[in-house]
């Protein structure tokens, strides 16, 4: 009987690259319960409940349509403004929500982590799943508008690139988690990041072709910077699938994956390094 017991070894300076994935799997029940808690607890004592996650992006889309479409008159081709902005926002919001959740993973759960052990990666992982539910709501809303515009004969040409949507969502998740882990790990030492993050993520949104098509950026330097941002490829690919306009640059898609995976891997390792003793400094 004793032989079947798991053996835990606690040792100083455990290697930063060693991540116990088996253990994370063992804690999957906790992961799902945290997801469930985050999905239900936020809506307690609200009237609209999860509808807020539909209303917020809808209002943003309307604001964008009025300001950038009708007033600033940014040229987005034949695509209806509403569809143009919303297709970008759906993906951006998923990414941004995961990023924000991940960034606060350690600091906002420090009182819990000071009292009990569980694989710390569970918290950022739970964000990915929780936000997936919100993404689904947004996506369904978007599709409803899309189908309506399509039936009105707006200049939309859906094509086979649409099959890439699941992969794009996956990439958003990896990216959001990667950047989130980086920020989370650094927030332990520099609390300033907590204040800077909302501002940074807003800047980042404008650096992503959400209110304008990537094809409007022609200066070579700006173009390089634009495509170095992995969200550019995601938004452009998705939008091309829905509208058939502005085909994304293939090398840009490749680059976005390189950036995504690099950030994710380094983020996971950095997080793993920091989480071992972070309760001592928080």
């Amino acid at each position: 009987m004793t032989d079947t017991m798991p053996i835990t070894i606690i040792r100083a300076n455990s290697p930063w690259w060693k991540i116990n994935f088996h253990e994370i799997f063992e804690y999957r029940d906790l992961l799902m319960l945290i997801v469930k808690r985050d999905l239900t607890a936020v809506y307690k004592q609200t009237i609209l409940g999860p509808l807020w996650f539909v209303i917020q992006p809808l209002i943003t889309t309307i604001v964008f349509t009025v300001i950038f479409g009708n007033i600033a008159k940014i040229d987005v081709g034949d695509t209806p403004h509403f569809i143009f902005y919303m297709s970008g926002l759906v993906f951006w919001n998923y990414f941004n929500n995961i990023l924000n959740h991940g960034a606060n993973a350690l600091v906002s759960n420090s009182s819990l982590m000071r009292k009990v052990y569980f694989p710390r990666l569970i918290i950022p992982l739970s964000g990915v799943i929780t936000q997936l539910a919100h993404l689904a709501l947004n996506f369904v809303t978007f599709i409803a508008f899309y189908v309506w515009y399509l039936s009105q004969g707006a200049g939309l040409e859906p094509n086979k690139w649409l099959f890439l949507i699941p992969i794009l969502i996956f990439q958003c998740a990896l990216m959001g988690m990667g950047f989130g882990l980086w920020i989370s790990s650094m927030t332990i030492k520099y609390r300033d990041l907590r204040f800077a993050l909302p501002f940074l993520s807003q800047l980042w949104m404008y650096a992503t072709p959400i209110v304008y098509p990537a094809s409007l950026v022609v200066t070579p330097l700006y173009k390089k910077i634009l495509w170095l941002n992995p969200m550019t490829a995601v938004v452009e690919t998705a939008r091309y699938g829905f509208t058939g306009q502005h085909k994304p640059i293939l090398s840009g898609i490749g680059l976005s994956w390189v950036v995504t995976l690099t950030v994710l891997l380094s983020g996971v390792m950095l997080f793993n390094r920091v989480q071992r003793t972070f309760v001592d400094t928080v």
Partner: protein
Amino acid sequence: MNDIALSVKNLGKRYQLGAIGRHTLGEEIKHFWLKFHGKDPKEHMGQVGHPSDPSKNIHPEFWALDHINFELKQGEILGVIGGNGAGKSTLLKVLSRITEPTTGEAKIRGRVGSLLEVGTGFHPELTGRENVFMNGTLLGMKRKEVANKFDEIVAFSGVEKFIDTPVKRYSSGMYIRLAFAVAAHLEPEILIVDEVLAVGDANFQKKCLGKMSEVAKDGRTILFVSHNMATLQSLCTQCMVLQKGKCVFGPGNTEEAISFYLSQNRKNAATPLASRTDRKGYGRVHMTDVELRDPVNNTTCTHFISGRPATLRIYYTQQIAGEILDVEFKIDIRTKASALLSVLSNHMSQTIFPEIHGRGYVECTLDKWPFAEGHYLLNLKLESQTLLEDSIEDALILEVEGGDFYGTGRGFPTKNEGVMVAQTWHQAPTPESTA
């Protein structure tokens, strides 16, 4: 075959005192800037919370755990005893994997459940039922295991009626009972418990203790930290005593460990205060002596008498030049078994000492000494602007002679140490007498 459940080798944990590093990006940039210009940042920036004292290391370190070694066989209950700051909590934290040790290793055979707090992860908006599952999985159970035990847990807690109510509507007693019920039904091979038993009413505590010894009879191993000697005595098969991060006794016989710990306290208290070295705090000023005085005759005395006026005079000597502002003196009064009875402090009585320097003394006078006959241990603390300057545990043993506190000729009904409180009783008129 191998029945060692827990083996700890050379375990050590180091902390840095004072401010760690530079907390904001601005400070970091300043640090970088100074370094870039070839200046010593430590000199130019000063350290937050650490008075400038060139003789001291800028980042003083201390070992909260220092070379701890022990082995625990399956089914044994090890009690860990130690004063404040002895390293008990750190030991539990390291063994619960909340933080990593600085040196050494620990090998644990079997699943570990650690209870460093009751109700970890309880979310006020969720119902009792949801929280039971949440808390159970956080403590390392599978969802299915919680489901199997759910009825048992709820029955143990006695909050059946409210199980589908959000816990924010619970009374604090219900909350704790439910939380403990989950913890009590954990079935890890090794249980790590930190004084959580000190919650709830006496009845519930008894229930919990019963549950603990039941758990132990099942052959599970328990590591238990407590201040309560009686609990340790009734529960533990062996005990170890920690002092300043080092294991100074055991693990060995519980009785011996307890008497070792208590004698240690007394031995400390017998050392003259000025020559005590086991102080904590920044040490710009030291407390050098405590005197018992009779304020009526203005003379020193050897002991106090319950119900009579009493003065404690604390002498201090400044060690390092500088301003020591807004000073608070604190006196913890404890029983021999370490239970805290009361705290005296000049802040509590709204007295401000704006500054002290050089040598001097302060006095604390009680019009009626409220403690009953017996012996008490005193801890002394001196803070300046809420920063700990000097702290001495078990600074002295205070002897108290029984006296007429209530002015009725009656003393304290038991022979134990305790606090006497002035009181008024009143009987409601019975129907007969009003008639």
